């Protein structure tokens, strides 16, 4: 078979409509396709600090073969949205895109590059291992249909707006997946939070995004208390206040001690991702 002659073009030379179309074409056969329209892709680029001038589309004779995007934050980068047309896979396009983004990361003095791959996507996982990425941890994607809370909240909750919610997020140990970093939530709209305190000094907070139909981006912290009990209390407040909203949250580490509270509230695991990291 003739080796594909590739040209890598910055994504900034394309419209969001063209990029969304290219991205969707590369994902038609994915087990979790997650297509996007131009509006959703533009929001994604904004929220996750994707640099369109440092992200690339692979082209061969004017045909789009695939694309890959690079998020940039101080000292770190994030590779995302890698996709190659099904009939053009295993011809080196994905590896060429990845190598370009790693070169770009090195040129701008990035210390670590992160990515996530859906567990079970063996070809992508193998490519990332070949490029010296190492598995960091497993992440859960959780979902809950619109339902009232399964428990009645007991403690009083204090509801807060975005500014205070972002201040709460700064209390976390800075080891969040890219999508859940404080900067991602700072870039996002409709961010709110709630805080609870127990009589014996336990404290917790829950930050979330609320849109017309969904609750998402659930970030949380508990201290001086049973993490499951306090988390369940906060989720009870959330779903008592918003019983008709569909809920999902992504990239929660598998070993997170609060996870049983999510299960008790009716969240279920949809799939898992493997977070990988590569020092540059």
């Amino acid at each position: 078979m003739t080796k594909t002659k590739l040209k890598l073009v910055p994504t900034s030379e394309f419209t969001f409509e063209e990029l969304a179309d290219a991205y969707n074409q590369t994902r038609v056969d994915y087990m979790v396709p997650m297509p996007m329209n131009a509006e959703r892709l533009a929001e994604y680029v904004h929220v996750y600090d994707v640099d369109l001038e440092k992200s690339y589309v692979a082209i061969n004779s004017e045909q789009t073969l695939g694309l890959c995007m690079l998020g940039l934050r101080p000292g770190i980068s994030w590779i995302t949205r890698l996709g190659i047309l099904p009939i053009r896979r295993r011809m080196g396009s994905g590896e060429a895109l990845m190598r370009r983004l790693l070169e770009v990361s090195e040129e701008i003095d990035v210390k670590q590059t992160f990515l996530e791959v859906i567990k079970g996507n063996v070809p992508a996982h193998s490519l990332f291992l070949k490029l010296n990425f190492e598995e960091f941890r497993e992440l859960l994607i959780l979902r809950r249909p619109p339902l009232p809370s399964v428990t009645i909240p007991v403690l009083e909750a204090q509801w807060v707006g975005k500014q205070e919610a972002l201040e709460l997020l700064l209390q976390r140990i800075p080891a969040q997946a890219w999508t859940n970093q404080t900067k991602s939530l700072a870039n996002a709209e409709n961010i709110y939070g709630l805080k609870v305190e127990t009589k014996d000094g336990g404290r917790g907070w829950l930050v979330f995004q609320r849109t017309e139909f969904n609750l998402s981006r659930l970030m949380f912290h508990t201290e001086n208390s049973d993490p499951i009990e306090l988390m369940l209390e906060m989720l009870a407040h959330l779903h008592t206040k918003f019983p008709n909203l569909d809920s999902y949250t992504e990239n929660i580490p598998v070993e997170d001690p609060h996870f049983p509270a999510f299960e008790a509230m009716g969240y279920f695991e949809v799939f898992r991702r493997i977070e990988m990291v590569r020092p540059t």
Partner: protein
Amino acid sequence: MAKVLVIEDVADSANLARKILTNYDHEVLVAMTGSGGLKLAIDERPDLVLLDLGLPDIDGQTLLGRLRTEAELGNTPIILCSAWPEEAARKMAHAYGFDGYISKPYKVVKFITVVDSHLGEQPDNIHDQN
């Protein structure tokens, strides 16, 4: 003959669904976005909806919730169509209250059997069509 709304963003899958359904004498409406599907559902009041989970503007789970809030669609069967791993898809269908589940890629017999079972119809010539 029933009116079936297919909400599906992948043209090949939508076309295959249309072909199978038409072959079994059903009227087929196709929407390739969630918002388009919602509008068609409200305007056309289909007898059954086939709903993909992954749509470019709104996901299938959220769209299901919107469809369920429309009083005139309250009793319309909504079938989840997904390429997700079967266990996850069935869990999703059950949790969200879909009326049924069809895995992708479509298999003609299975597809039409599930559709017609929710329409209260018995598929004709099923073996000839597969």
